[in-house]
């Protein structure tokens, strides 16, 4: 007997069982290939309005703890899994994953043939979908209509929806060396933590902040975070990035932040067919030829070729990193301005720590720019 259904906008229906909260939920369906880190993934604000499919079949084994959230709540619109854990087992676990989902009202579905689903998304691309269970379970056409009535990810401006409302400060660990203004378009907890560990006091500002708000912090550097939605809509953040570049304040961007910097330099973004969502993604640094295994979570990418150099109002820039799986741009570097960014997640969580050194690079860049910087304290 059908007790829950996942309905895709192309009409395909996957049966399953209710998991977490019952009801309905709409969003863009994407698959994530990480075998660990569901707690971090579910609380990653970049997944706002997305229904995430876990390709790993056994989910919930380590329960839910009080330490690993990447933000204050679960952000995914829905969660699709195959085999839920009956009993979580980990010394840090405080509750089951199903409990966490239910208490936060997140609708999930279990028992789905996630491999068939993933292959379908791979071939047909990310698309709108809905999970329906309990009273929301209806006849197929009704459910499909609801999916088709939901909004598209292309053109979605979501960063504001996940941002902090108030500025908050993450103090430096040990002696404070620098101060960084971080624009919160969906920042993950581990990002300020990584900077703080390097002696940076991080001021996390609401997405709606103005250039003056940023400068008021008297930052030694400005950080553009990851975040959900279509970067093509993020004109506000792009303007802030341009302002930062103009003032030659060191700039570092991650994920959404990479797309913002790219746009600030005059490049455009496009939607990938099914995106990069995993923690096993190779990235090659063109300068060293070295490979980092990275955590990634992006449905959009910067238009461009690996290694391409181009002129910008701020001097020459180049696409410094790329993913050898499909040659998408994974990093960007200004050669004449103190700014760089990557499309992947050096803060990891979930994911490997190979790229953590990028935060050191940011510190070095700030250090380098100290004498001649603009915006005196």
């Amino acid at each position, binding site marked *: *007997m059908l007790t829950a259904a996942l309905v895709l906008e192309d009409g395909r229906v*996957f*049966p*399953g069982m209710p998991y977490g909260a019952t009801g309905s939920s709409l969003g863009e369906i994407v*698959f994530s*290939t*990480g*075998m*660990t*880190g569901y*707690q*971090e993934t579910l609380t990653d604000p970049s997944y706002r309005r997305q229904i995430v499919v876990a*390709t*790993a*079949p*056994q989910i919930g*084994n*380590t329960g839910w*703890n009080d*330490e*690993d959230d990447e933000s204050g709540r679960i952000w995914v619109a829905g969660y699709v899994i*195959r*085999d839920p*854990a*009956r*009993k*979580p*087992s*980990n*010394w*840090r676990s405080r509750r089951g994953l199903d409990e966490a989902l239910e208490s936060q009202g997140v609708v999930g579905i279990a*028992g*789905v*043939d*996630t*491999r*068939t689903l*993933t*292959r379908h998304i*791979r071939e047909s691309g990310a698309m709108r979908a809905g999970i329906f269970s309990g009273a929301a379970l209806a006849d197929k056409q009704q459910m499909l209509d609801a999916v088709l009535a939901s909004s598209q990810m292309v053109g979605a401006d979501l960063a504001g929806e996940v941002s902090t409302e108030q500025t908050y400060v993450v103090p430096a660990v040990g002696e404070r060396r620098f101060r960084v203004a971080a624009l919160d378009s969906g920042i993950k907890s581990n990002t300020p933590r990584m900077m703080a560990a390097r002696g940076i006091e991080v001021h996390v500002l609401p997405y709606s902040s103005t250039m003056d708000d940023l400068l008021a912090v008297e930052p030694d550097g400005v950080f553009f975070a990851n975040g959900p939605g279509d970067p093509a809509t993020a004109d506000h953040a792009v303007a802030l990035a341009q302002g930062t570049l103009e003032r030659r304040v060191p700039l570092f961007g991650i994920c959404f932040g990479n797309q913002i910097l790219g746009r600030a330099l005059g490049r455009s973004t496009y939607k990938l067919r099914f995106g990069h969502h*995993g*923690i*096993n*993604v*190779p990235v*090659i640094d063109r300068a060293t*030829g*070295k*490979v980092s*295994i990275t955590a990634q979570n992006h449905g959009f990418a910067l238009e461009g070729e690996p290694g391409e150099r181009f002129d910008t109002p701020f001097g020459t820039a180049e696409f410094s990193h790329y993913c*050898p*799986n499909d040659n998408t741009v994974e990093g960007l570097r200004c050669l004449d301005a103190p700014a760089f960014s990557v499309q992947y997640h050096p803060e*990891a*969580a*979930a*994911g*490997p*720590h190979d790229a953590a050194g990028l935060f050191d690079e940011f510190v070095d860049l700030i250090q380098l720019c100290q004498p001649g910087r603009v915006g005196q304290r």
Partner: protein
Amino acid sequence: MPKRTDIKHVLVIGSGPIVIGQACEFDYSGTQACRVLRSEGLRVSLVNSNPATIMTDPEFADATYIEPITPEFVEKVIARERPDAILATLGGQTALNTAVALAERGTLERYGVELIGADIEAINRGEDRQRFKDIVRTIGGEVPSSAVCKSMDEVRKAVAELGLPVVIRPSFTMGGLGSGMAHTDEELDRLASSGLAESPVHEVLIEESVLGWKEYELELMRDRNDNVVVICSIENIDPMGVHTGDSVTVAPAMTLTDREYQHMRDVGIAVLREVGVDTGGCNIQFAVHPETGRLVVIEMNPRVSRSSALASKATGFPIAKIAAKLAIGYTLDEILNDITGKTPASFEPTLDYVVVKVPRFAFEKFPGADPTLTTTMKSVGEAMSIGRNFVEALGKALRSMETKAAGFWTTPDPEGATLESTLDALREGHDGRLYTVERALRLGATVEQVHQASKIDPWFVDQIASLLELRAELEDVPVLNAELLRQAKRSGLSDRQVAALRPELAGEDGVRTLRHRLGVRPVFKTVDTCAAEFEAHTPYHYSAYETDPDAETEVAAQPDRPKVIILGSGPNRIGQGIEFDYSCVHAAMALRDAGFETVMINCNPETVSTDYDTADRLYFEPLTFEDVLEAVHSERASGTVAGVIVQLGGQTPLGLAKRLTEAGVPIVGTPADAIHLAEDRGAFGDVLSSAGLPAPRYGTATSFAGAKRIADEIGYPVLVRPSYVLGGRGMEIVYDEENLAGYIQRATEINPEHPVLVDRFLDDAIEIDVDALFDGEELFLAGVMEHIEEAGVHSGDSSCALPPITLGRADLAAVRRSTEAIARGVGVRGLLNVQYALKDDVLYVLEANPRASRTVPFVSKATAVQIAKAAARIMLGATVASLRAEGMLPAVGDGADLPDDAPVAVKEAVLPFHRFRTREGKGVDSLLGPEMKSTGEVMGIDASFGKAFAKSQTASYGSLPTSGRVFVSVANRDKRAMVFPIKRLADLGFKVLATAGTAEVLRRNGIPCVVVRKHFEGPDNIVDMIHAGEVDIIINTPYGNHGPRIDGYEIRTAAVAKAIPCITTIQGAAAAVHGIEALTLDDIGVRPLQELQAILHKSRA
């Protein structure tokens, strides 16, 4: 970084014979390496003494040396070949230790040879336990507290600080040999002293106990650009305290959060970099405290390992192949992932399924051996399975074992098992521990209680608890509907298990009928390294049941070529190992060349057959009737199945022939009813008598009275055994009525369906082993092997020579006549193996097996004819004549008329006695008999028998001595025959020690000797002398019949402990003298197989 241009010639070192701790995984890795290096245009030389490997097929290297893997012999190979580099990281501990020895004796420097993969410094850093611990601390990791000790005094001092229990780990041994956990002072004395002895550097590590901690492994790879990737994480269900080779393991890790996993990954990568393995694979083991999460590093293997093979099969990422490419200079990002064909190898595989590995043990072969699982590996093989969840994979793995129990509820509980006794049993690791977990839960234990007793993570225990809930549902529901049946299948239950719960369904067949009617069938998914993110181009499949009836199956249609399905041989066990995999792989190669699409079904992760490159399609599935039938169904749905081959994988597939035939599956080759003719004693007796062939008299009994009647009639000694067995399981020579009664009593399962066979035993006969091909018309006598030991020792355990060294033309003609008559009478199409006993000029037929035998690879290499390939072709319709015409078989002649200058090949068995101890810590008896006990074999090949025999001995356990002391004690009937060989040894300079009776005879023959006391005659006896290292070789034939056959136990176990040759037959002594002469008088050289086979090819041209 592209390929290095300064390396043009690489010497690959293999791992030698299959032993516990080192099995066919190194044939898999070595074969991949040879393939890769040659395809890169390099010259490849290879040393490996194991003839049953694919890698020693002459086409896999430019120069293949089937020579002992000792520093002396490998140096000879280096001197002859002058390679630029040596690759030793793919041949297990044997290759690594040999490489270290070659470096230490200056060979590498002398010949200017570079070690690639890992250099000596890195090997030492990884293997030297103390240095390794220091390295882990350097990078900020933790290790268990410990002390390195070189004497018992140091051991006691260390334990005074650490407190018991402690773990004892000898340095530089493989498979955890000699290691163990000491809870008491007695155990400490025993384990530490034997550990000091086992370690080649006389060093043990005494370590804080992490018993009961969670155990993990990571498989990592590094390239010369310092890129590192983790290929796979493995979690051991059996917590710390049980060797990982003996543990049930799961991939990927199931109970780690990302934080803990990434911490493990960081530590692993840092260790790998600090140890400095330049390129290639390595394996690191970790323990995690279950309550605090404290992570400690246990050990590292700076080489490809058994776990790497498992990880390769579990992920689809071919570690050895990539390691070989990295060793010659490529970087990970320059190598394509075969499976996607688009993305680079510089990534970390991600799984959308669960893999379970279960070890296979053979304690039944070693009566008295302690079956408790410890840090010394004891398993002889393993099966892996893939499912879409843990319980599905577990169910498949358990039924892949081919043991009596084929998953939960398929065997009755042990009598009198209570909740208490069951929980108690869980405290120690043992074979079938998960069955004990299930039973404990069923008897009312809570998940927590089971966890407390076993320390198995509650998550796994709870998974088994979920099966019990399902069981209750399956038992209680009035009518089994599609939904519940699907749930059962999705949870890994076999039809047989469901049938056990629903008696009204008329057994497994009834369940299958119902299941098919309800449309509950598996889909076949693909192992693709990337959880479906990219399209896969390799058809590497596994079955799974999905809840969704519309779940897709990923097997591609292929209507163009007819398909041949080859059933493999399942987990390695004693009696069925790599030799059968060799034949299966050859069939795949030959049939692919002949235009068929080849499909392999097997569940052994160590093998070449389960490499996705071997057959056109691979189904990684249990070899049970149910699973095979579903795979066949899937292949039929995707094209035309020309036939299924059951003849090459040993007894496992052969045992399925009848049911598959009845189910309408086309078996090619010898048909099921012909198989029955050969295996059923009555039917086979009729075949023999109508052909006029003599066989030892025999009878079939189902009770002691019946057996006694037969034995009285045909006379003792008699050979008794159950019918339908492989490897002589349960076979014994019985010398009197009392022992016969004992045997019948022990053989619990005697009934009309499983009678016991009672054969006359031919004392002192020469045993002859024959492999032949038959196409219905013509016989090709592929090889005739003469056993060196007389009949009575299982053919798998006895050494043999090819060509047969003492058989005359008339004998060979009789062998040919008899073999042809049997092949014709049985109706063989393909391979036939016959064992004969020659006594008083009469050739008795002992048994015939209408299948590939263990000796097929040996015969193929010794005669330069690939008979498994020819057999596969014959099964699919070719004839001996047509294969002669196309050159697969020689144009004229066969393996029984080899030219006079043909090289002599000697096969010697390798025995695992030194790995087993009784509960009291004593050695197990090493006496050979009709039940097979060897784990593997080696081949010595040279121009003469003496040299070949000497090589076979060197390769199997060390070398025959060329000087020193020989101890002689022989049975009366052997005293005459002993004189000449012992005299020769004395002439060669050996000092002779003998027991009083033997000494008397020797002195009368002018051989000076020293009398020594027997074991029971007081102190300073022969056993003490052996232990003191005062004896170099032992010749000790058992005294006549009954009692004394078990005498000499102390001498044999002492010989095993000291690893000195202990010869138990006069024929063996004569062969040893031949060998010692060859070693003393000649300089034994090395020659590649290609050159030796050229002699045969030339004579046939």
